[in-house]
Structure formats: C-alpha cells, structure tokens
C-alpha cells in the first residue's frame, strides 16, 4: 500500500519507474565523469553545413508528439494561497500529464494589465500529488499509535461506520457540542467546505474558525472599519502612485499578482519595501527600508505625526470619513455621547458629537449606529479638529472635552514618533524615513499592501490601526489605487449569500461557533507565561466567556469555574473532524497539543487526498478526490472573477469528493440511529429538535443537493454576485462578478473599473460599519482604556527576553502552507530538507556554518534542521518559511514545536458596537511572530537516507 503506483505512463513513452531509475544517481555520476567521446561517424555528412541547412528534420516530430494530448480539463487548487488561478490540465492516455495556466481572464479595461497568466510554480506541478507516493488511495483505520503511520485498509462501509458510531455516541452520551469540525477558507472550494459544515450544523457540532486562528485576520480592520477584511483587487495596484509593501513579500507570496506592482512602477508609481530582510520584493523596490522586527507601528505613527505637523493631511476627508473630529471626555476617556447630554437610550448611547464651528457648540454627527441619519453627509455641520471645550452634562456637571484628533496629536508628540526617534527605534537612517514620509505626503493615490509579515505579531491590532491611520489621514481609503490592502488568505467569499445558505441552512443563530485560538489554547496544556496588567491571560478569557463576549465549547458552568481550571475543564471536546486543512501541522503549540489535546480526543478523522501531518496523526483517514477530480468553484479577494474545479478525471483509486464523503457519512449516521432505535433529541441551547433518522434528507435538502454540481449551482443562483451563472457556464473562461450584495460589500462591481472597497462610504457617503459610523481610530471600551490602547500606539513585542533570536516563520515562495512542502519537484529546487535562514553575523556568533545541521530550541520544544546563511537576513532572528510537514526531514520536532499561543485581551472583547464575536471576523488571533529561540550546531545522529527510494530507483 505504501508504494506509489509506478505504472503511470507519463505520456512521453516513459514509465515513472524508468524515470526513477535515472534519478538513482550512481550510474549517472559514473557516466558523467568519463569523457571518452570519439568522433564516430556513421555516414558521410561532410557536405552539410548545419548552420545553413539540415537535411534530416523528420525527427522533429518527436517533440511535436510530446506537445499533444487527448483531453483538456479546467480546474484550480484549494490551498488558501489567495491566488485563485484557473488552470488547464492536459490528459493523454487516461493520465494527467501536466497543467498550464488557462490564462483567459477577460481584461477589466484596455489600460490595466490583464490577469494572465495567473498561477505559480506550485500550481504547475500539482499533478505530482495526484499520482505521488503521498496520495491516500483507500479508507485507512489506524493500526498503531497515533502518528505511527501503521494502518489497515478498510472498506468505505467499515470506515464510515467507525466514524458514525462514535459521533452518535458522543451526541447521545456527551452532548452534540463535544463533536468538533475544522475546515478552512470556503472561498477556495465552498462546495467542499459546505459538505461538512452542513453536517456540523445538522448534528449540533462545534464549527471552528480559521482566519483568526491562522492570524491572517487583520484585527485592525474590524476595529477601524467594522469589516472582516476588505482589499482592492490586485489589478488596482496599477492605479497607484505610491505602493508600500509592508509585511508583504509579494514576489514570493503573491506570485500571480506581483506583476501589477512592478508594472505600476513603470507606470509612474514609486514602490517602497518595508521588511527586516532583503527579499525578492525588495529587489525591485525604489526604496528598501530594512526595519527592525516589531517596530513597524513606530514608522507608521511617525508618518502620521509628520503629516499632521506639516498640515498635509486631507482635512475634509478626515472630518467626513473618520472619528478624528469626535469629542472625548477628559474625565473618563470615553466618547462624549448624546446620552451624556440627555436621556439615556440605546440610540443616544450610540450617537456621538463633534464641535461645530458654525454653531460653536457640540453637535451630533450623522451616520453612527445610534443616528437615524444613515449618511456621512455633514450638511451644515462644520466639525473642528482641534481644541478643548467645556460641555455641561445632563446632570449639569461641566466636563472638559477634546477631539480624538487632539488626543492623537498629543500622543504622537513623544520623541519616539519624531523622524529621528523613529529612525533610531526602527534601525533606519533618518534620510530613509524622511523620503518615506515625504512620499506619503506628496504621492497620490497611495496604498499599503499588507501581509502576514507584520500581521502575525501579538500587537497586530495596533500595527493595523497605525497603518490604516496613515492612509486615512492622506484620504486614500476608498479610492482606486489607494488604501490599506491586506492579503493573507482567501477568507472572503464573493457569492456570500448563497454560500451561507448552503453552509449553515438554518442560519448562524442555530450554529455553535468557536474561535479556534481559544479552543486550542484552553483544551491543551499550554500556558502563556506573560502577565497582562498583572493578570494571566486565563483571567481575561474567563471574563470574556462569562460576559458572553466569546464562546467556548463544549459548554461548562463558567460562573462556577475559576481561571485555573480553564485548561482542565469538566466537559472537553471528544471528536475532531478535519477536512481541507492540516490543523495539527499548522497549530501553534504543537508539542503541548500532542501531549494534551491530542490525547484527550477519542476520535480524530481526516479527509484528505494526501497523507499530511494531521492525517498521519488521525484515527481514520478517508481518501478525498484531488483538486483535478472534483466539482467546485473558486474565488479570491485578489481578483473579481469566479471559475471552476472540474473532474478532469473521475476520482482516482477509491477516493470520493468531499461532497460524496459527507453524503455517505450522513447516510451511515442515519443507519446507526435507526439500528439503535435512537429517538430525536431536543437541543435546548439552540432550540432545535434534532431527528437524525432523516439526516441525509436534511443534508441533501430532500435530494435537491444530491451532487456537488447541484451544490455549486445552489451557491451561484442564490448570490447577487453570480446572477445568471451556472456551474457549466464557468467552463469557458473565468467570469467577472456582475454585482455585489450591498449587505456584504462596501463597493459595487463596475464594468471597466478595478474593484476597490469603501466607495459606498467615500463616494455614496454611506456610514462605515462601526459604532461611530466612521473609520474609527478611537476605541473607548473599558479594556482599551485600561490597556492604554484607545488610540493606535506602538508597543514592544510580547516576547521571551531570555532567548536571543526571534523565530520568524513567514509564508514563502516554495509552499502554500504545508501543501507542496513535501513535493519532490520543488524540494529539488531548494535544499531538499527543512531549512532555517540565519544572518552572516549570527552564524558567526553561534558557530554554525552554511548547510550545517542545527538545533533550534526554547522552553516550548526543539527543532533539528538544516541552516542556510543569508546576508539579507537581519541579525537577531532566524527565519524558517512555514509549513514544513513534521514528518519530513526534521531530526527532532518541527517548526511549530517552538511556538505557543498568546492571546491578546483586546481581541477578547464584545458587546461594543461593531465589536462582538463573529466567526473569522472578530476573535483572538493565533499570532506567532513574537516567539524567541536560541540556536546551536547539532552533531547528533541523523536519520538514514532514503535507501528505499534509491533501491526503487535502481530496480
């Protein structure tokens, strides 16, 4: 079972076995070293001058035959790369040979560069997974310890029964909230996502978040804008005149889109790259700022101070679109509300005031959550940005008030945010900082392209808010070519309405949601040693759960518990079902999870086409169809098109599409319920009487959603964005969305115009989706007041100072998370093993040489891997591009063996206008950038090389 199928014909008359034979190496080396060529001539060709004419060209057919095929199918990849690239897969003799970008996205207009060809080197060798040795071909049930890799082959019937029995046991003996479901990023394949989310929904199971857990959510966006994430499509980069790559290494991690930035440069944009390491994006920048890790907010806030001091901010925009003119009470740092001045109602509590120059008094501003005027139009109001005044409260008490702008100015007046102060703190030269702020002040439109490089810090909310402030002060948000555009993960699904109706048919109120950061932290023996205002994070988590701000499943009696019991709760999760994700490999605090959570769970199921780390550590692995064997649809924030997955070939081996897997599981659960004669039960918490004896009928909507194509068509036909489209109609070429649902979006789709968010606010003057109805930089929730974070501010990383080096695990060019990390075509173009990058100075300091084995460790665990010395790496940190599978090449541990979960209390709040828990919108992020480690040369034993592969090759 372990052996790959060697009989695959590669379509060039060569079998895979023959291919491997050559790769063995020994014979090849011998032949290479000999040089015994002699000029044997079989026949006379003295008359031929091959520079002019060549008589024997019939052989050229050889390569023409290689460029031929029987069939072409259109598909894509479901890997959360944010690419959403349409590919064509070429088939010959019943075998998928290769793929090539479809390269047929229609242009937006003649001036903008088009999106073709869209796709990267990884997409160009996905076929390797279809036939590769990692492929899961049959249902497998664990025969050894978890993670041992000993399996017995099972029938579908047996494997499904194994899973169904245990899920039903949990529901009836322990409660439906002990079954946990984890799958990520619906946009990359919503049909596959919904297959299991519907199951979770109908079983009353807990559905876990992903976007916050992976720290891809920029919390500053929900805080400031009241949205999950909104970014312009990448073609809009071309419209910019100043592009700042900030924590985003586009040449490596946005490969299909990077050209828009470099082409924008030829179109007159300047590009600045802010990054601790000199990387593939810095290479093409007009300015490279090698910033000290974790100091980005200083640079952003210094820019804000410069803009304000020089008076080059966009005052009319700031007055209309932001909360900077709002009044704040000096006595309690709370906004001045209408309820302070008159009767207290829900509406007056959410109505805010400015100082109006025309009436010389406080005036309520329209557009807030409490205002009846749902507009940003100021009318006759003339908000004042600076000043201090006294107003009389309802009880007659006078109170001093000032504006958010005034408070901001004051906060920015400390030396840290001067040009020289920022240069010092950020490790930059003053001249570079001056150029940077000057460009922001003078070039329009200007945008920040933001990524995980900065977003993965503990203080990501502050970093986001500081950067958004720069582009808001300059009036760049809501304009083509401008804004703060964050691209980390394909979290946003365009046809949202149809997707939601398919995913959770009875609606969000009938679903148990869970922020995965909290779930993982609380259900494993992991302890963040930091104290926040003197208290451990457990204190804040429990407070948040008790307040009903954040959910934590399974349910427990929170009032009776104390913070010390949070990691050993009376009711614990019992089952975890994972599909379309690699939960374990990508989980922060890997060692602690394996020691605790993984031991507590009594059922772990993974649905997968390849044996990844989570599959390897599961009890049951169900073989899924690969991306070229399924029907689904695909979209991304990065562009405004939708295109399909297709069954280029029917599911290979014994695999099934996710839709068919969950359909079969629903039928199996029904059987178990009927066999055991189990009665419907009342799920009181959700007010839902659950009759699982008709689970399949409910899951398939009485047979209306029998097939994955039915499901795809359901999404398309229930969404404004895809009105008039069918699954089949996507086969010709990617289709641009035709409209946006105004409930879900903040701009229209317009023919001939690149999508950029927030034109509804900036052009149509609709309020922002925040408490104040404005871009909200001031947050007066009591916890924000306590932590000193009412306004964006720089805070030092929440690190572990006993270790010397940051452990930097960014996205890289050679994988999408863990996918492709184990792909030999790509490993051959790296060094073949997990690799840590270290600066020249640190290599010297820690006594390691290039290509040495090293041990990297801290209090959490250790990883033994190879090291590479890179002059462009900054001293003081080690970089390992993330995603390496735990089973590949590490002599000990893995890249997540060194990390642990650090929850930031400001991200636990709720009940504050726009800030209340919403899956993947608002919840604590699983940051990991603040981790520190040390490194030493490793001289211990190294696992034997792949002799089996060599033998196989020589067979």
């Amino acid at each position, binding site marked *: 079972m372990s052996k*790959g199928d060697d009989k695959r014909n590669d379509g060039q008359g060569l079998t895979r076995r*023959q*291919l*491997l034979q*050559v*790769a063995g190496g020994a*014979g090849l080396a011998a032949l290479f070293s000999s*040089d015994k060529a*002699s000029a044997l001539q079989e026949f006379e*060709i003295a008359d031929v001058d*091959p*520079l002019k004419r*060549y008589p*024997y*060209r019939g052989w050229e057919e050889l*390569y023409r035959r*290689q*460029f031929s095929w029987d069939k072409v199918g259109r598909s894509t990849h479901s890997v959360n790369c944010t690419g959403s690239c349409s590919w064509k897969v070429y088939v010959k003799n019943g075998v998928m*040979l290769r793929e*090539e970008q479809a390269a047929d996205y229609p242009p937006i207009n003649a001036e903008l*560069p088009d999106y073709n*060809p869209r796709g*990267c*080197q990884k997409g160009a060798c996905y076929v390797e997974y279809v036939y*590769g040795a990692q492929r899961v071909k049959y249902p497998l049930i664990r025969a050894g310890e978890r993670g041992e*890799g000993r399996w017995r082959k099972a029938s579908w019937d047996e494997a499904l029964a194994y899973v169904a029995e245990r899920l039903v046991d949990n529901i009836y003996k322990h409660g439906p909230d002990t079954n946990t479901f984890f799958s990520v990023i619906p946009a990359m394949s919503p049909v596959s996502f919904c297959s299991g989310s519907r199951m979770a929904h109908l079983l009353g199971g807990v559905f876990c978040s992903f976007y916050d857990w992976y720290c891809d959510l920029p919390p500053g966006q929900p805080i400031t804008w009241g949205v999950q994430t909104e970014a312009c499509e990448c073609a809009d980069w071309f419209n910019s005149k100043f592009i700042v790559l900030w924590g985003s290494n586009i040449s490596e991690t946005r490969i299909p889109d*990077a*050209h828009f930035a470099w*082409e924008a*440069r*030829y179109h*007159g944009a*300047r590009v600045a790259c802010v990054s601790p390491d*000199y990387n593939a994006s810095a*290479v*093409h*920048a007009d*300015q490279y700022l*090698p910033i000290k890790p974790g100091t980005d907010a200083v640079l952003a806030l210094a820019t804000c101070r410069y803009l304000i001091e020089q008076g080059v901010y966009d005052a009319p925009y700031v007055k209309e679109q932001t909360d900077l003119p709002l009044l704040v009470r000096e006595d309690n740092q709370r906004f001045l509300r209408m309820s302070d001045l008159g009767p207290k109602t829900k509406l007056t509590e959410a109505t805010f005031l400015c100082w109006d120059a025309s009436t010389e008094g406080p005036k309520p501003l329209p557009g807030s959550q409490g205002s009846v005027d749902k507009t940003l139009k100021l009318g006759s109001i003339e908000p004042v940005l600076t000043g201090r005044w006294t107003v009389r409260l309802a009880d007659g008490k006078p109170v001093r008030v000032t504006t958010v702008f005034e408070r901001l100015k004051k906060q920015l007046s400390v030396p840290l945010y001067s040009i020289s102060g920022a240069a010092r703190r950020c490790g930059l*030269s003053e*001249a570079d900082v001056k*150029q940077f702020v000057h460009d922001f002040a003078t070039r329009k439109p200007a945008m920040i392209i933001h990524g995980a490089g900065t977003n993965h810090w503990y203080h990501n909310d502050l970093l986001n808010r500081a950067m958004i402030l720069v582009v808001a002060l300059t009036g760049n948000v809501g304009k083509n070519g401008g804004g703060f555009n964050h691209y980390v993960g394909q979290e946003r699904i365009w046809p949202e309405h149809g997707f939601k109706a398919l995913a959770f048919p009875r609606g969000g109120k009938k679903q148990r949601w869970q922020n995965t950061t909290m779930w993982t932290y609380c259900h494993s023996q992991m302890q963040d040693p930091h104290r926040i205002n003197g208290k451990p994070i457990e204190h804040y988590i429990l407070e948040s759960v008790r307040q009903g701000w954040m959910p934590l499943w399974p349910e427990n009696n929170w009032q009776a518990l104390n913070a010390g019991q949070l990691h050993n709760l009376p009711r614990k999760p019992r089952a975890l079902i994972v599909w379309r994700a690699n939960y374990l490999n990508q989980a922060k605090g890997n060692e602690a999870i394996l020691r605790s959570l993984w031991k507590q769970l009594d059922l772990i199921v993974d649905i997968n086409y390849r044996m990844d780390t989570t599959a390897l550590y599961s009890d049951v692995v169900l073989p899924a169809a690969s991306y070229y064997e399924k029907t689904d649809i695909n979209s991304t924030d990065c562009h405004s098109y939708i295109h399909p997955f297709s069954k280029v070939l029917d599911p290979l081996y014994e695999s099934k599409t996710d839709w068919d897997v969950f359909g079969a599981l629903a039928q199996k659960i029904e059987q178990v319920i009927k066999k055991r004669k189990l009665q419907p039960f009342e799920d009181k918490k959700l007010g839902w009487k659950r009759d699982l004896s008709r689970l399949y009928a409910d899951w398939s909507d009485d047979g209306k959603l029998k097939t994955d194509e039915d499901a795809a068509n359901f999404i398309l036909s229930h969404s404004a964005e895809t009105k008039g489209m069918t699954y089949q109609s996507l086969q010709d070429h990617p289709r641009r969305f035709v409209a946006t649902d105004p409930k879900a979006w903040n701009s229209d789709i317009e023919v001939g115009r690149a999508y950029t968010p927030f034109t509804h606010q900036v052009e149509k003057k609709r309020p922002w989706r925040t408490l104040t109805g404005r871009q909200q930089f001031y947050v007066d929730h009591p916890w924000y007041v306590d932590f000193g974070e009412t306004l964006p501010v720089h805070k030092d990383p929440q690190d572990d100072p006993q270790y010397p080096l940051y452990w930097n695990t960014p996205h890289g*060019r050679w994988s999408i998370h863990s996918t492709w990390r*184990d792909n*030999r075509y*790509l490993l*051959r*173009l*790296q060094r*073949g*093993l997990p690799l840590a990058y270290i*600066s020249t100075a640190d290599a010297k300091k820690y006594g390691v040489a290039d290509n040495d084995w090293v041990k990297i460790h801290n209090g959490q665990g250790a990883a033994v891997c190879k090291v590479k010395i890179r*002059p*462009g790496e900054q001293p003081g940190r080690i970089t390992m591009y993330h995603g390496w599978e735990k*089973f*590949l090449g590490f002599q000990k541990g893995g890249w997540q063996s060194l990390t642990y979960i650090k929850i930031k209390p400001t991200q636990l709040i709720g009940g504050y206008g726009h800030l209340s828990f919403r899956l993947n919108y608002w919840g604590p992020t699983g940051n990991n950038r603040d981790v520190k480690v040390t490194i030493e040369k490793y001289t211990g034993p190294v696992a034997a*090389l*792949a002799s089996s*592969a*060599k033998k196989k090759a020589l067979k």
Partner: protein
Amino acid sequence: MSKHQYAMVMDLNKCLGCHTCTLACKKQWTDGDGMAYMYWNNVETRPGQGYPRNFDRMGGGFDVRGNLRPSKLPPLEDYGEALEYDYGQRLFGGSKKPVMPHVLADYGPNFDEDMGGDDTRNPYHFYLPRICNHCTHPACLEACPRKAIYKRAEDGIVLVDQERCRGYRHCIRACPYKKLYFNVVESMSQKCIFCYPRLEKGRPNACAAQCPGRLRFVGILDDQESPVHKLVVQHKVALGLLPQRGTGPNVYYVPPFLPPKAGHPRATVSQDPRLPVKVLERLFGPRVMDVVRSLEGELRRAQRGSRSEVLDLLIGRNDSVRYALRPDIMKRSASGK
C-alpha cells in the same frame, strides 16, 4: 545564417524568482527518463554559483580568433542529483524515521538561492532565468563532430537531432552557458528547443506563457513590429549574456537595477549602486551601465508623471504586447524543406 531569428527578451526588473518557468519547462519537456536532474530553463540567484556550478567561469564559446575554447565537462556534483524521497515508509509503513532524501544535497540547481552578495549592510541579489540562447554562432553546433546540431533556417532555433546524436558531449564542453545536458539513459545530449512545437501552433514558449511575472517577450528579431526588435534594436535596452564568449546569444536581458543603499534614498545607480557594477559587467558586458542609466532615467521620468515609451512596452499589458509569434514563417519553411 538563418533567414529569421526568434529571440526572447527577459526583463530582470520584473523577475520574481518564482521558478514557474522552470516547472513549466520541466513538466513540458524534461520529465522523462534521464532528465530529472536537467533544467532546460533554470533560475539562479546572482551573484552566485549558477547551474551548473560556476558554468560562467568554465570557458566555452570562441576565442578572439573564432576558435572553439571548450571547457571541461562539468561533473554531476556541479548539477546536483535529483532528490528522491522515501515517503511510503513513514506515512504508510509504520517507520519512525522521518521522510528523507536519498542523498544530502551539497549542491543543486538553486542551492544558493537568495544568498547573493555578502554585504550585510546593503545586501544585494537578483534573479537570472536562463534558457538556451539559440546563438547566432552556436559553439555547440560547431563542436559537434557528427553535425547532429543544426540551426533552423526559417527561425534560427538551434536543435540537437535526437536520432543522430551519439552523446559525445563536445557540445556541452563548447557551450559557454552549459545549456546542453547529457541524458545518460538515452545517451544523448538534450537542450531547450525554444518550444518550436508550441510556437508553430501560435503559443508562446512554455517558460514565457507560464511566467506570472510577465517578463518575457518573444518574437522575430528582424520583425520591426515585434517587442524583441523594439527592445533590442530600437530602444537598445536589452543585452545578451556573456557576450564576450562570441556566440551571439539571442536571449536578451533588460539588466536589473536594485534600490539605492540604505541612507541614500535619492542616489542614482551611477553614484553609489547597491549592486556592484562589476557584477553586471561580467554578466552583460561593458554596455550594461549605459542601459541601466537610461532605464533609470526613463523610470524617474515616469515617476514624475510623464509617459515612457519603453517602459510602456515593458509593462506588457497583455499577450499581444509581449508576443509577436510567426507560425506562418515557421510552417512555410518547414514544409518547404
């Protein structure tokens, strides 16, 4: 001399270093027996050792008198073995041993990726994608004792006849770019074919068609409407690699210029370049700094708000700008032989 000459221009200021070209080529042409280690298209970090290791310091090409100067034959270690892995034993076989490669790499086609120059204050590197240069005076052709290498009269593409080649490897020694590879199974030399089967069907070379950086321009050099003519002949912003080797390469590069050094945000490439001039001159010859200065001037103008004709071309908005393929010429000549 061929009647026409296909050429390719690669704009190194757009290269992402992503190797999609490499994989496109690999999956299209070199996925067969004896080919795993060979990359007709590769991307290397410069300065760096290249692939095969130090090929650019080995020799090859012609001396000033026009005589071949063959180099040694690079040993396999200088290419690196194509790694194979034992996935099965760990994932399905119950072995506790991690998945490992069959050999610990100490060199490979991209071994020194992103290392570049060792100036830690102002690090520098850039990416150099390479294919066969389909030279006007191909040293490989001249070196082949069997005359199994020829230059197509209609389009200038240089090919190794896969029926007549006997694997003597004189071509490998003669090529200054080391862009011919020995297939030990077939006992033949093999090389980039400039994707003639694709071009004949009106589709750009795999490495160009699949390049997400959109940095490759393809056309006939003497076709005045083609982007390669405009960039090489008209605007003179693209240069051949190692021109002093005398082979007349037909792949041209728009040379790279990197951001100014830290603390000198307004410095021009002439004043104090991050990338040492000698690195560029060694690769692209003495004219390179003229080209870089001219491009920098164009860029500054564009950033001040004027439109630049050459940069507008390099934007390459869509396929019709980047490619001017002539399947008509190719088919006519091929059938007329």
